[in-house]
């Protein structure tokens, strides 16, 4: 597997005092969809701006497809495309014209230009509005147009900074469906920043959690959640007292990590709740125990964040999030 992004001991200090990145080490494989998840102010945007050669790190090194982002910036810029968090299209010209201007900036040969622009418009579902001024577009359409601009050059890697901020769930879903098609068809690596946990959960093959300038956890969504210890199944049973032999039998199952009884509730910690449920139900039925209620509780990425960053995601995020979203809307 190719390495798309390699980061060693990266730090960034603004104005000699604000430490935005604090020794980041990270490897992202090519062809995957990678989420950098963290609350606002965690350093996500700073990291992305260094990787896209906009700003220089204070110390440490970063490579994009083996190219040093500081010393080989212009080569890096030929491989990547980038969608910043803020709106990045001209609103006083049409969607088609935006793509045309970018196609020319990227120096796409004249005879391919038209074809690629129409392909990008088609992919992003904007073909019907291509000649309308962008200022008449909805937020979701503007985001799709920005991603269309980023798709024009068929980059090796796409950097998306908060790709669905301010979008409603339907628009978010539409954006991601198109991105996934693009990823599948062209093998593009997608590196995105997000503070939406469900977005990382649903759309990332691989996640790194960043908090206060440090990567605190790394893995797939499943892996991170399982690292918390597993999923909890609770059975509420009718027949009392609960047979100790049953408990012993369940405890023997290899996927059951722990079991406890509290009044009429039997709780057990398993690796995967869905897979384990039918086995355990069978055992309980064989012992003629009737189950009234089953509840499953799975750890969320929020729990993961709590464990590794030592705080709730929401606590830190909320106020700055509201302020930020308002600002986006005002600009929008």
């Amino acid at each position, binding site marked *: 597997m190719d390495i798309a992004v390699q980061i060693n001991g990266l730090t960034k200090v603004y104005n000699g005092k604000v430490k935005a990145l604090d020794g980041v080490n990270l490897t992202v494989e090519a062809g995957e969809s990678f989420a950098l998840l963290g609350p606002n102010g965690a350093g996500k945007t700073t990291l992305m701006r260094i990787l896209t*050669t906009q700003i220089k790190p204070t110390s440490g090194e970063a490579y994009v497809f083996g190219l040093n982002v500081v010393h080989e910036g212009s080569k890096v*810029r*030929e491989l990547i495309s980038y969608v*910043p968090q803020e709106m990045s299209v001209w609103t006083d*010209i049409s969607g088609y014209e935006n793509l045309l201007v970018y196609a020319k*900036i990227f120096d796409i040969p004249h005879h391919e230009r038209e074809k690629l622009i129409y392909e990008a418009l088609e992919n992003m579902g904007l073909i019907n509005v291509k000649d309308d001024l962008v200022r008449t577009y909805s937020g979701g359409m503007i985001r799709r147009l920005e991603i269309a*601009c980023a798709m024009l050059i068929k980059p090796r890697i796409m950097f998306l900074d908060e790709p669905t901020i301010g979008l409603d769930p339907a628009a978010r879903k539409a954006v991601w469906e198109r991105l996934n098609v693009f990823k599948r068809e062209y093998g593009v690596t997608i590196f995105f920043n997000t503070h939406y946990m469900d977005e990382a959960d649903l759309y990332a093959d691989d996640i790194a959690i960043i908090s206060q300038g440090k990567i605190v956890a790394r893995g797939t969504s499943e892996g991170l959640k399982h690292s918390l210890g597993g999923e909890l199944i609770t059975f509420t049973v009718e027949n009392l007292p609960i047979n100790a032999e049953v408990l012993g039998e369940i405890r023997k199952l290899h996927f059951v990590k722990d079991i406890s009884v509290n009044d009429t509730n039997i709780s057990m910690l398993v690796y995967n709740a869905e897979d384990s449920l039918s086995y355990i139900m069978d055992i309980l039925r064989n012992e003629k125990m009737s189950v009234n209620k089953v509840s499953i509780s799975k750890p969320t990425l929020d729990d993961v964040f709590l464990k590794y960053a030592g705080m709730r995601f929401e606590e830190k995020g909320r106020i700055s999030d509201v302020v930020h979203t308002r600002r986006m809307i005002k600009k929008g």
Partner: protein
Amino acid sequence: MLKAVKNMLVMIELEMRRLWHDRTEIYSRAIQPILWMTIYGPVMGSARAIPTGGVPYTDFITPGVMIQTTTFVSILYGLTMVWERDSGILKKLLVTPAPRYSVVVGRSMASGVRAIFQALIILPIAFVIGVSFVPNPAYFLLALIVIFFASGGFAAASILIASFMKTRERFMGIGQAITMPLFFASNALYPLQIMPSILREFSAYNPLSYVVDAVRGLLITGSLSNLLIDLIAIAIFDIIMFILASVSLRRIIE
């Protein structure tokens, strides 16, 4: 290098497309110079207080008030860069393979396009009012080229200033505070000879004076004795501003 030139042309094309979609600014900005030419010009001219070398006073000030307008348009153009920084456009442009200085120079020259269209609105009106022009298409063309390059320099100057300003509102005030002194301390409304000596000294460093002098020579008086010096002065101004603005871009993006 070829890439940089191409990129500059794209920036100019972009500006023409924006202009095509919304032309109201060009029309509304033409009002001020028209007032100078129709009211201030005849009134001051009838007083015959200002030596213009035999040219009617309204004709004398026509290049000056036109260039004041195009300069103001260019200075406000730096504002666009501040706005593009607030939005993500500038960030995205910097992540393209285009050389960074070509973004600055290209955006600056794009303001020259606006300036030319502005001039093309004002000049016919001046003609209708009765201003008599030198009937030479080559002079006319050269005058437009002078306006184009001078506007690029002023736009680069405003990008430089914008790099120190953190908000749009602050910049708006600064824009006025720069154009008006440049305008009054130039030969736009009166010849340099009648200025107090301190002002005359300052005017020697005022790029606007050279622009007005060149355009007045080409369009109104037909005297080209100073043209070479004017062109050199404008070229030096442009180059310095392009370099400073390109360097200041770092401050805008950080």
